[in-house]
């Protein structure tokens, strides 16, 4: 009996939505927009967290030494005001310490780069001490030797002229392994300094989130005119296997009180804090989208209840219960939510591709990363939006009174 009543009420709901197509479509569009917004913005949040998390992991450092609490983060290139100085000496001194397996200074610096003189793009230049052994080349090789041009601070050692680019930089500059590229901190410096692309590696760009060209640190400092202070954005430290990383952190902090030493997890938290504005904005927009969807569904169904108040009052006069009328309204909400969720998910798939293509063209690829669970979340949000809207509209149904709404 209950099943029969439920089926019949759902049938009435479907007939109502078929009859009031424009209103129904409007409500479905509202839900779909909420779903698309939730999916895309959650994807942005997931991407931000994933880049920070896997990026910090990919760098492979146990400790991060920087000049300030927010010296850099993915996407925030340079951070000139928080650079540490005498980077080669600092990294060499750290590397000599007990329980430290290796240390390398890394500088992030915006540079002009191009395959031809005069045709430059702005990308991220990454300078590093060491021989580049940690860079995994997907094509070609990593650096053949260390940062020999530094020559104990004289900057008069031989220049290797080697460069690693990531796939996006290679694509953007139109170069491949073996090609020559011009790199400089200024257009004039770029005209005067050429490098050979020895390999393609995506390791650093995954952390930075932008196209990169990796040079030896001293050579990047040379082409950007900063050899006088030997700057770096960070010194990455790897500890010996089994070493007490916290103890090394404390020792380094004591030796370099002006610098900040973070563990891997602390660095990730730092990255996360830098992304908090993006995540908070995305969350706010998602909440607003859901609120708008609920409002629209409530409005559409509420107007339908108001429009049909006399018919509903007549049905109540005939003994039809509020519960049955509520089932009809809730069923309308469920149908609107389900269809809206399906449409939203269908639109979100190409929408995400479009956003990634558009933002990727600006040098920030895969800004939206939406795994399957994000779509499931979007679908659930659509259903909830429909049901919540229907519950609010259903409350109006319970207020329909045969005495008040039928003419006397």
């Amino acid at each position, binding site marked *: 009996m209950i099943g029969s009543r439920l089926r*019949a009420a759902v049938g009435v709901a479907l007939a109502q939505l078929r*009859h009031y197509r424009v209103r129904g479509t409007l409500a479905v569009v509202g839900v779909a927009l909420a779903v698309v917004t939730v999916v895309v913005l959650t994807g942005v949040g997931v991407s931000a967290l994933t880049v920070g998390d896997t990026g910090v992991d990919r760098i492979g450092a146990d400790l991060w030494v920087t000049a300030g609490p927010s010296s850099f983060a993915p996407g925030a290139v340079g951070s000139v005001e928080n650079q540490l100085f005498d980077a080669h000496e600092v990294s060499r001194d750290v590397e000599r310490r007990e329980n430290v397996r290796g240390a390398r200074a890394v500088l992030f610096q915006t540079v002009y780069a191009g395959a031809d003189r005069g045709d430059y793009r702005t990308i991220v230049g990454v300078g590093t001490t060491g021989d580049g052994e940690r860079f995994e080349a997907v094509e070609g090789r990593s650096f053949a030797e260390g940062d020999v041009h530094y020559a104990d601070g004289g900057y008069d050692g031989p220049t290797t002229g080697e460069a690693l680019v990531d796939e996006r930089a290679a694509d953007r500059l139109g170069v491949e392994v073996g090609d020559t590229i011009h790199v400089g901190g200024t257009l004039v410096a770029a005209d005067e300094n050429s490098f050979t692309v020895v390999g393609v590696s995506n390791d650093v760009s995954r952390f930075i989130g932008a196209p990169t060209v990796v040079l030896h640190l001293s050579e990047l400092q040379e082409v950007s005119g900063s050899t006088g202070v030997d700057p770096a954005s960070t010194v990455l430290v790897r500890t010996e296997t089994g070493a007490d990383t916290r103890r090394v952190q404390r020792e380094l902090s004591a030796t370099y009180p002006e610098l900040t030493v973070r563990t891997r997890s602390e660095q990730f938290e730092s990255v996360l804090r830098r992304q908090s504005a993006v995540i908070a904005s995305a969350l706010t927009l998602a909440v607003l989208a859901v609120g708008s969807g609920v409002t629209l569904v409530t409005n559409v169904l509420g107007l339908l209840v108001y429009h049909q108040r006399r*018919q509903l*009052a007549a*049905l109540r006069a*005939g003994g*039809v219960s509020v519960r049955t009328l509520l089932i009809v309204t809730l069923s309308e909400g469920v149908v609107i939510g389900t269809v809206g969720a399906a449409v939203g998910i269908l639109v979100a798939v190409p929408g995400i591709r479009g956003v990634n293509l558009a933002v990727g063209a600006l040098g920030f690829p895969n800004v939206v990363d939406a795994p399957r669970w994000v779509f499931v979340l979007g679908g659930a949000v659509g259903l909830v939006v429909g049901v919540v809207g229907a519950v609010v509209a259903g409350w109006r149904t319970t207020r329909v009174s045969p005495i008040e709404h039928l003419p*006397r």
Partner: protein
Amino acid sequence: MSNVEPDRGRVADGRAESEAVIQCDSVSRVYGRSSGWLDDGNEVEALSEVSLSVTPGEFVGLTGASGSGKTTLLHLLAALDTPTDGHVRLLGSATDDLSSGERAALRLDHVGIVFQRFHLLPSLSARANVALPLIELGVGKRRRRERAESLLEEVGLGDRLTHRPGQLSGGEKQRVAIARALVNDPTLVVADEPTGELDTATGDTILELLGAVADDRSVVVASHDPRVVEAAGRRLVLRDGEVTDG
């Protein structure tokens, strides 16, 4: 006070009070009556000490000027509302003793209501509109369909089963509304100005239909239309909230 003919059915037909479909005893209905210690002084007495009974098979015409209390009395008779004083017994149950839900159940089982403006859901076919109250009774789809089709055949709309209200004339809509009022096989049918929106010829058809309905159930029709009163077997006139014999 004014039950000039307090119990015509019983007097005329000699039926016992317990046989009455409806029994009203000194029924009054006052709107705006304060239930607390504040009295806003805006009370309107729509009905005053009305007593009457309606027996099975009676066709009662209720007439009176606008504002005389016809609709209020119909609401009380159909258990849509309860009196502020006195008692209405519908099939032996005092409606003021029943909760809102119990009165709704009583209406669902025993009362059919026809409105001046039909109040059909525009999104549903004639057949679906007629079958709607049966959903509440938990009747299965096939039986709902059969019952609705049978009633629409009876009111002459066998060829309009799938038409929506927007595709029907005023008279056809009212016939659908009458079929809907009969779908639960009620003991009592009340109709409020059922010909008010219709032209003369169509109104006559509706009156014939209501007359036929009254063959095996009680019918109370409130109307300004003198034809309604002529068609009814018994006439009651409401004047300033009081019933007088027509």
